[in-house]
C-alpha cells in the first residue's frame, strides 16, 4: 500500500525521477533501515506530510491520496506546530517506525551528496549558499525526498537525531533492559558486617617487615646516607648557591674572538655550471679531436677546463659524477685552509679629501681682475713706465698716494699712484738696491740704498707742512761726535748744494759694504740696513734722531737676507738663508728662531698683527709661520715654479702676495683670527701675470697699497704695474 502511494505521488509531481524506472522496492532499500519501515510505511508517510508544510490544496489532495490510511483527520489538523505537538507521544505504540523516519532524515545529507542527480534540483549552489547565510534554520532544514519539500526539523527531532548519533535509543523513555538490580554498595551504613568472619591476627600485630624497613631507613638516616626531603632541599639550595647553576659559556672569550663572530665572511660561492657542463652541451662546446688531444697533453693545473664536455642522449644516460667526493673535499680544503680576511678598505669620496675651501665671494675683497683678450695676462689698471732697467724695489708712502721705485738704471722715481704720473726722478751714481718710505705719516722721508750708502731723501711730495717739518727735524738732530771705530759715517748734504735743492737729498750714511736692504721701524726713527757679505756687521740699526748707528750682533750668524721690525713690539726679525731669528731689542737676546724648510730665504713680510710671518724662498716655496703655533712653518705654499723674489702682506685686508721668476704673482687670502684657537685660513685667490720676462727675471717686487686692495709689482721689464 505504501509503495502504491509513493508511485502515485511521483506520477503527480512528474519529476525526472520517473526516468529512473526504479521499483518501489529499490527505492525503499535506499533508505536506511528500510526493512523496518516497509511494513508501516503508510503511517510514516502520513506523518512525513506533517513536516512538509503543504498548501491547503496539496493537503486536500494529500488527504485524498491518503484517504485510505488509518489515521484520523484530527492528526492532520495539528500539523503546523512542530513544538507543541509531540508526535512521538502518539506513536508510542510503534517506536520503530519513528526510528526509521529519523534515520531517513539523518542519512539525507549523505544521500544528497551521493545521489544529487537522483533528486529534483531546486535551486543551484548559489541559492544554497544564499539560503545558508540567510536562513537561520538552514542547518536543520532537510529536503524530503519524497515530496521534494524542505522540512525544518523541530527541536525534538534534533534531540532524537542526537540520541541516535550517540548510539542511544531514539526514545529517551525506552528502557531496553527492564531489570531491577539489587544495589550492593550504597551510602547507607549497615550496622552489621556483611560477613561474619573474625578479623585476622595480623591486623593486630605490628608488621615485622615494616619494622625492618623502617629500621633500615632510620639506620641509613643516622649514617647520613639517606636524607629527609627538607635536608635534600636545603642541600640543593646550598649547592646552587655554591656554584651558579647557569654560567656564561662565552665569558672567557675576548674581544677578538667576538669580533671574529661579528665579522663573518661568507664562503665564496661556487661558480654556477655553464653550458659546457651541460649533459647536452651545444656542439660548439664539444671538443674536437685536436682540442681533446691538446687537453690531454696539458698539465692538470694548466687546463682551462678540468673536464671534457660530453653529450649524452638523455638524462638517463648520465653516469654518476666520479669526482664528486674529490671536488667537495677540495672545496672544503679551500675553505678551511685558504685564509679569508676582511680587508679594511676605506670608502672615501675623493672630493672629501680636498680641504674645504671657502667660497671666493666670502673672501672679498681681493683683486678683481679681468683677463685680457688673450686670457693669458691679467689687465693691470695702471702701468708706470719710465725706468730704463729692472725696477728692484718699490715702496709706498703711508697714505698710499705716492710711490717710490728704485731701479738698476741708477734712478729713483717718485710716482703719483692714481694717475701713474712720474713726479720726480733722482739720478744717483749707482744701482739702487732698495728704497723704503718712512712709515711714519708725519715724516716725509725715503731711505734709498745705493752702493755702500743709505741716502735719506725728502721727496717733497704730500703735505708741505710735513715736508718742511721733516727738514727742520733733520736740521735739529745733532750730529754726534765722530768716534773712532764706528761702523758708519753720517754725512749731511748742505742746504745750498745741488743735491739738496734739486734732488732733495738730505742725509747720507756710508757703510763698509754695499747695502742690500733697508727696513724702517714703524715709528720712523729707526731703520735697519742689511749689508751683503759683511760678517757680523751684516745688520746695522740706525737711529735717525741721534744720527747714530749700532751693530747689534757681535758674531756673524750667516748670510743675512733681510731684516724686519715687528710692527708694534721691540722685535727685530733677521732672516738668514735658512732661519729667521727674532731678537728682542730691549732685552738684547734671541727670543725665537724660526726654521724655514727651505734652502735660501729671499724675502720676508710680517702680518700687521705681528704674530704671523711669511717668507719667500728661492726654492719656490712660500712659508707661513704662525709664531704662536710653532717655529716650523704653519703652511707651505708651492704655487710658483721658480724662485720667489718677494712677498708682502696687506696691512688692512687679509691678503698676501708673492712674486716669482716664472712671471706669476700669486695673491692669497690669509685670514688671521683674533681667536687664538683658530688657525689662520690661507686660500690662494688669484694669479697675476703682467710683466714681460727679461733676462730670466720677471716680477721682482710686490707691495700692497696700505688702504686699498691694490697690488703693485715691479718687474724686470722696467715697468711697475698696479693691479686692482
Amino acid at each position, binding site marked *: 500500500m505504501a509503495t502504491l502511494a509513493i508511485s502515485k505521488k511521483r506520477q503527480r509531481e512528474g519529476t525526472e525521477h520517473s526516468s529512473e524506472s526504479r521499483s518501489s522496492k529499490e527505492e525503499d532499500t535506499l533508505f536506511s533501515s528500510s526493512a523496518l519501515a516497509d511494513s508501516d510505511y503508510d503511517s510514516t508517510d502520513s506523518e512525513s506530510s506533517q513536516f512538509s508544510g503543504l498548501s491547503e490544496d496539496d493537503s486536500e489532495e494529500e488527504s485524498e491520496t491518503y484517504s485510505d490510511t488509518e489515521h484520523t483527520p484530527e492528526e492532520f489538523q495539528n500539523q503546523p506546530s512542530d513544538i507543541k505537538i509531540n508526535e512521538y507521544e502518539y506513536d508510542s505504540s510503534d517506536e520503530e517506525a519513528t526510528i526509521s523516519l529519523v534515520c531517513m532524515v539523518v542519512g539525507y545529507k549523505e544521500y544528497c551528496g551521493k545521489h544529487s542527480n537522483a533528486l529534483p534540483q531546486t535551486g543551484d549552489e548559489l541559492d544554497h549558499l544564499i539560503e545558508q547565510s540567510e536562513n537561520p534554520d538552514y542547518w536543520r532544514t532537510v529536503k524530503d525526498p519524497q515530496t521534494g519539500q524542505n522540512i525544518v526539523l523541530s527541536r525534538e527531532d534534533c534531540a532524537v537525531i542526537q540520541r541516535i548519533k550517540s548510539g542511544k535509543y531514539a526514545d529517551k523513555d525506552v528502557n531496553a533492559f527492564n531489570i531491577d538490580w539489587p544495589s550492593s554498595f550504597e551510602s547507607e551504613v549497615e550496622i552489621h558486617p556483611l560477613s561474619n568472619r573474625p578479623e585476622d591476627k595480623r591486623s593486630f600485630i605490628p608488621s615485622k617487615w615494616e619494622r625492618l624497613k623502617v629500621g633500615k631507613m632510620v639506620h641509613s638516616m643516622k649514617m647520613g646516607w639517606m636524607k629527609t626531603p627538607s635536608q635534600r632541599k636545603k642541600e640543593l639550595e646550598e649547592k646552587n648557591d655554591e656554584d651558579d647553576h647557569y654560567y656564561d659559556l662565552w665569558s672567557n672569550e675576548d674581544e677578538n674572538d667576538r669580533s671574529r663572530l661579528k665579522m663573518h665572511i661568507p664562503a665564496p660561492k661556487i661558480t654556477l655550471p655553464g653550458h659546457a657542463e651541460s649533459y647536452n652541451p651545444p656542439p660548439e662546446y664539444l671538443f674536437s679531436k685536436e682540442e681533446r688531444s691538446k687537453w690531454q697533453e696539458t698539465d692538470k693545473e694548466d687546463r682551462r677546463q678540468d673536464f671534457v664536455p660530453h653529450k649524452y642522449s638523455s638524462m638517463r644516460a648520465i653516469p654518476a659524477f666520479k669526482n664528486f667526493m674529490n671536488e667537495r673535499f677540495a672545496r672544503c680544503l679551500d675553505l678551511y685552509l685558504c685564509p679569508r680576511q676582511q680587508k679594511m678598505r676605506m670608502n672615501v669620496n675623493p672630493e672629501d679629501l680636498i680641504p674645504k675651501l671657502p667660497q671666493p665671494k666670502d673672501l672679498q*675683497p681681493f683683486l*678683481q681682475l*679681468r683677463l*685680457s683678450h688673450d686670457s693669458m695676462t691679467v*689687465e693691470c*689698471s*695702471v702701468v708706470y713706465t719710465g725706468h730704463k732697467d729692472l725696477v728692484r724695489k718699490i715702496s709706498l708712502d703711508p*697714505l698710499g*698716494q705716492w710711490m717710490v721705485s728704485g731701479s738698476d738704471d741708477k734712478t729713483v722715481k717718485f710716482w703719483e699712484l*692714481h*694717475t*701713474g*704720473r712720474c*713726479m720726480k726722478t733722482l739720478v744717483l751714481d749707482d744701482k739702487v738696491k732698495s728704497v723704503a718710505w718712512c712709515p711714519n705719516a708725519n715724516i716725509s722721508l725715503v731711505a734709498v740704498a745705493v752702493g755702500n750708502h743709505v741716502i735719506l731723501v725728502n721727496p717733497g711730495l*704730500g*703735505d*708741505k*707742512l710735513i715736508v718742511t717739518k721733516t727738514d727742520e727735524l733733520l736740521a735739529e738732530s745733532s750730529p754726534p761726535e765722530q768716534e773712532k771705530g764706528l761702523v758708519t759715517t753720517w754725512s749731511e748734504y748742505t742746504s745750498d748744494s745741488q743735491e739738496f735743492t734739486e734732488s732733495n737729498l738730505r742725509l747720507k750714511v756710508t757703510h763698509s759694504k754695499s747695502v742690500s736692504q733697508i727696513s724702517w721701524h714703524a715709528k720712523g726713527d729707526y731703520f735697519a740696513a742689511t749689508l751683503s757679505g759683511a760678517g757680523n756687521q751684516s745688520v746695522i740699526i740706525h737711529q735717525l734722531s741721534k744720527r747714530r748707528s749700532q751693530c747689534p750682533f757681535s758674531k756673524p750668524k750667516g748670510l743675512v737676507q733681510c731684516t724686519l721690525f715687528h710692527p708694534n713690539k721691540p722685535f727685530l726679525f733677521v732672516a738668514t738663508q735658512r732661519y729667521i731669528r727674532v731678537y728682542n731689542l730691549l732685552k738684547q737676546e734671541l727670543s725665537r728662531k724660526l726654521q724655514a724648510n727651505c734652502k735660501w730665504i729671499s724675502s720676508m713680510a710680517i702680518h700687521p698683527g705681528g704674530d704671523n710671518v711669511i717668507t719667500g724662498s728661492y726654492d719656490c716655496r712660500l712659508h707661513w709661520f704662525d709664531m704662536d703655533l710653532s717655529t716650523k712653518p704653519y703652511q707651505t705654499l708651492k704655487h710658483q715654479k721658480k724662485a720667489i723674489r718677494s712677498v708682502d702682506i696687506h696691512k688692512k685686508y687679509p691678503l698676501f702676495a708673492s712674486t716669482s721668476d716664472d712671471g706669476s704673482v700669486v695673491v692669497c687670502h690669509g685670514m688671521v683670527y683674533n681667536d687664538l684657537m683658530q688657525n689662520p685660513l690661507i686660500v690662494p685667490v688669484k694669479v697675476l701675470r703682467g710683466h714681460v720676462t727679461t733676462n730670466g727675471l720677471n716680477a721682482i717686487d710686490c707691495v700692497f697699497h696700505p*688702504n*686699498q686692495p*691694490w697690488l703693485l709689482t715691479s718687474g724686470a721689464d722696467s715697468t711697475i704695474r698696479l693691479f*686692482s
Partner: protein
Amino acid sequence: MAAAQGDGLTQAHAQVKLFTKLKRYAAAKSTFSLPGETGCAELSKILISSLQSHDLLDDASDPEFDFLINGELLRTTIAQFMESKEISTEEVVGVEFILKQPSPSPEQSILHNDWVSCVQGNSKYILSGSYDHTVKIHTYEGTELLTLPAHSAPVTCLSWISSGDNTYSFVTGSHDQLLHVWQWETDTNSIKCLYKCSGHAFALSSVVTSPDNLQFASVSRDKMLKIWTLDDRGVNVNTDDEGAPSKKRKSNEAQSKVPIITLAGHSEGIMGVCWKAMSNIVTAGLDHTIRIWNLETQTNTQTITSSKAILSLDCSPVSGRFLTGSSDRHVRLWDHRVKDSSMVIGNFSSHTGWVSSVFWSQDNENLFISGSYDNLAKLWDVRSPKTPLYDLTGHSDKVMAVDWSCPSYMLSGGADNSLNIFSYKASQ
C-alpha cells in the same frame, strides 16, 4: 648646435608694436611680426618705410632712429634682447622709437706741454690745466689765448666761476695745496689772481662752483671738503701785517683766503665733488663712500657705500642722479633717493681700465660721457648699460678728464698731452 640655434632664432618671430613720443611721428603706430634676428638697422628701414607710407617724412630730412624696449636701448637683435630680458615671444613687444643721437665729430686736438689733468669749457672758451703747472685758455677753434703759469705744482682741477661780458673768472687747484681764483679780461687778455685759497693739506683733487656762482667747493686728498666764497668772507687779513689789505688790493696782489666751511668725514682722500643743490654737496672718495652734505647744517646727511674706490663723481643737473667712475672698469649710476638696499641703479661696463672721469650731459638726463685709463672716452646712454653710444677715440694714453659743460662740445684731456674737442649737435 650653433646652426640649430640659428634656425631656432630665424623661426622665432616677435610681435612688435612701434610707437613714439615724438609729436612729429606720433601718428605712425603699427604692429609688425618680425623675425627674431631683426636688428636696429632692419627696424629702422621698416620704420622709415612705414613713416613714408604715412607721409610723415619730408624728403629733405633723413632721420635715424634708435629703439627702446622697456626703457632699454636695443643694441642686439630683437630675439637676443628678448632672450636676455626673458620676455616671452608670445606677447606684443612695445618698441618705442626715438631719434638717434648723432655721433660726436672730432674737431680739434690741442697739444699741451704735459699731461692734461683737467679741462672745462664754457660757452666760448676752454680752460685746461696741465701737469706742467700751467693753465691754458683756448677757443673752441683751437687758438690758444693764454698760458698761465698758475701754480708751482701740477694743476689738478679747475672750474669756471662766472662769465661777464668780457670778464671771466675761474678757480684752479693744484698739487701745491692751493686754490687760485683768477679774473680774466678778454679784451686785454689780462689776468689777475684774486685770491689764493690755502687750507688744504694735500693735493687738490676737485673743485666745483656753486650753482649761484658765488661759492665754490674743493676737495683734496687730505679728506677735507672746504667751501669758499668769492666775496670778502674768509679773506685772511691776519697773516700779513695789519693795514696791509687795502694796500695789497691796490698793488694788485692776490688776497689769501681761508675756507668758510670745512667738512671732515671721509676716511681717505676725496676724489670728486659735486654741487647738487644750493645747500647740498656730494663728495666721493677713495674710501669707497659717497657722502651727501648739507651746507646749512654742515652735516653729513647720507653716506652711500660703494664697493670700489671712487675716482670721479658727477651729479646730473637734470635728474639729480650721480655717476661715479671707480677703480675698476665700471661706471655706476646711483640714485640716493632709492630706499632699497642697493642704490646702484645702473652699471655701465665697456671700459677696460679705471674710469678717471665722468660727466653728465647738461640738458639730457640720459646722456653722459666717461673717460678711462684705457685711452677712450665714451658717450653713453643711460638706457644702454652694456654698450656705449659712441667711443670718442683719439687719445693715445690715459684719458684724465672729460667735460661736457658746453652742450655742443665734448672735451677730453689725456696723458698724451692732448686736449681733444668733439662737437656734438643734439637731436631734437
